[in-house]
């Protein structure tokens, strides 16, 4: 039996999520099948509506006018983030799909498997990005992330292309975000994405975390070098808020020492540190 790696499963989900962005406008435009509308800012699958938490929060904060369907549509993504953490980013987000696709293409073309991170900043910048974004929207009186969010822009570009045969100018942001990947892996996701920060904040007390079993760990740090977010799962950073549960480190561990932990665990600081 072929054992499916987490990264392959994840890439399959990412591909499906991305093709949904392309298939939904095509169905709407050519066949008038309106079963699925929208993209990852708000997607409606039949009567099941989902609104991205940060965009919904911005709209609520700016207008201070709660709207029933908006609140109901926020329940599912917020619950997902509370239980599983920042999985939208690693398993669904089209920006992650594009980054991963470019990485896979690069691996096919060149022999170097890993590229070092050139710019490593403080991870806490993520929270400042979220704070600044909310502050700016409140000052301007209009939400900003709703029209500048790269994950949403991918959907808007695809939809605009299918419907109007044009690509809106904002699409340059996507290219810019992908170019930032040259500085270090997922530079935008690591340090700048307000949506990612908000989902990470929601998932701070999530149940599913990457745990180092520590029975047979050789301390080779292969997992640390593989992490797209620049974390060190070998010393338990898979338990921190910054981990997005992508499972890359689990695939890369030759000794099977990392796994998704579903049970409640004690804070890592009380665990023995590998000699």
């Amino acid at each position, binding site marked *: 039996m072929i054992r499916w790696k987490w990264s392959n499963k994840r890439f399959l989900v990412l591909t499906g999520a991305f093709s949904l962005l392309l298939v939904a406008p095509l169905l709407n435009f050519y066949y008038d099948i309106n079963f699925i509308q929208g993209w990852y800012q708000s997607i409606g699958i039949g009567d099941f509506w989902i609104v991205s938490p940060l965009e919904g929060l911005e709209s609520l904060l700016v207008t201070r006018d709660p709207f029933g369907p908006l609140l109901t549509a926020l329940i599912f993504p917020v619950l997902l983030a509370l239980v599983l953490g920042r999985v939208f980013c690693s398993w669904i987000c089209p920006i992650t799909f594009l980054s991963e696709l470019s990485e896979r293409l690069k691996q096919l073309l060149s022999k170097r498997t890993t590229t070092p991170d050139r710019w490593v900043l403080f991870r806490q910048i993520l929270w400042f990005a979220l704070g600044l974004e909310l502050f700016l929207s409140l000052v301007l009186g209009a939400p900003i992330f709703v029209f500048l969010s790269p994950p*949403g822009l991918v959907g808007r570009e695809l939809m605009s292309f299918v419907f109007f045969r044009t690509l809106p100018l904002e699409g340059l942001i996507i290219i810019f975000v992908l170019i930032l990947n040259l500085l270090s892996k997922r530079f935008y996701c690591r340090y700048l994405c307000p949506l990612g920060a908000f989902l990470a904040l929601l998932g701070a007390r999530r149940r599913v975390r990457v745990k180092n079993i520590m029975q047979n760990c050789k301390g080779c740090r292969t997992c640390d070098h593989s992490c797209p977010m620049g974390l060190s799962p070998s010393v338990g950073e898979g338990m921190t808020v910054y981990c997005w549960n992508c499972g890359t480190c689990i695939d890369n561990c030759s000794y099977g020492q990392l796994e998704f932990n579903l049970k409640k665990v004690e804070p890592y600081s009380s665990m023995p540190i590998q000699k």
Partner: protein
Amino acid sequence: MAEKGRSRRTALKLLAVVTGFFCFPTVSQAKTLATSPLRDNLLRPPGAVMEHHYPGKCIRCGRCVEVCPYHCVELLDIRHGLSAGTPIIDIEKSPCFLCMKCVHVCPTGALLPIEQHETRMGLAVIDHHTCVSWKPDSLLMCKTCYNVCPFRDTAIRMEEFRPHVDERYCTGCGICTNACLINRDQGGKAINVKPIYATIKLPEAPQ
């Protein structure tokens, strides 16, 4: 190595300048960033909230665009500043046929579910100088707008062989504007839809 680093730095600088040029409008355009993009014949979809609430309410998910069977709802781009990504109907290109599909998919209440006859996207205004039925020296009688109006005999009535718009019933759907035979070469459409919320001013507090 130093050469390479310098060229990369130049490339990055160039990139920053180019993105800056595209992302930020020039100073003269800055004023329009926060103003409403609405004007004559350029309207919000049905059921839209007051225009000064609209950019805050709308989360730019584009679902109204995708459900519109006539493809008349379009999206604005970043050149419209804070209104970037909000839906708009250019009725000269394609009017709203009041199918009321978009109002039922809006997740944030920027478009509120309403009935066809309650829709107030704008108000059709007849230009008496260009309309052939209204021109004083004209012997022609055209009643295209009357014929196409979905609320014929209530929203547009024919009185003394001339079309009259009743502001109590006009939904502002723009079918009349789209059908009007007068075109741009003849001085613009003879019936235009004025957006209701674009020019209205909030009542000032009593002194």
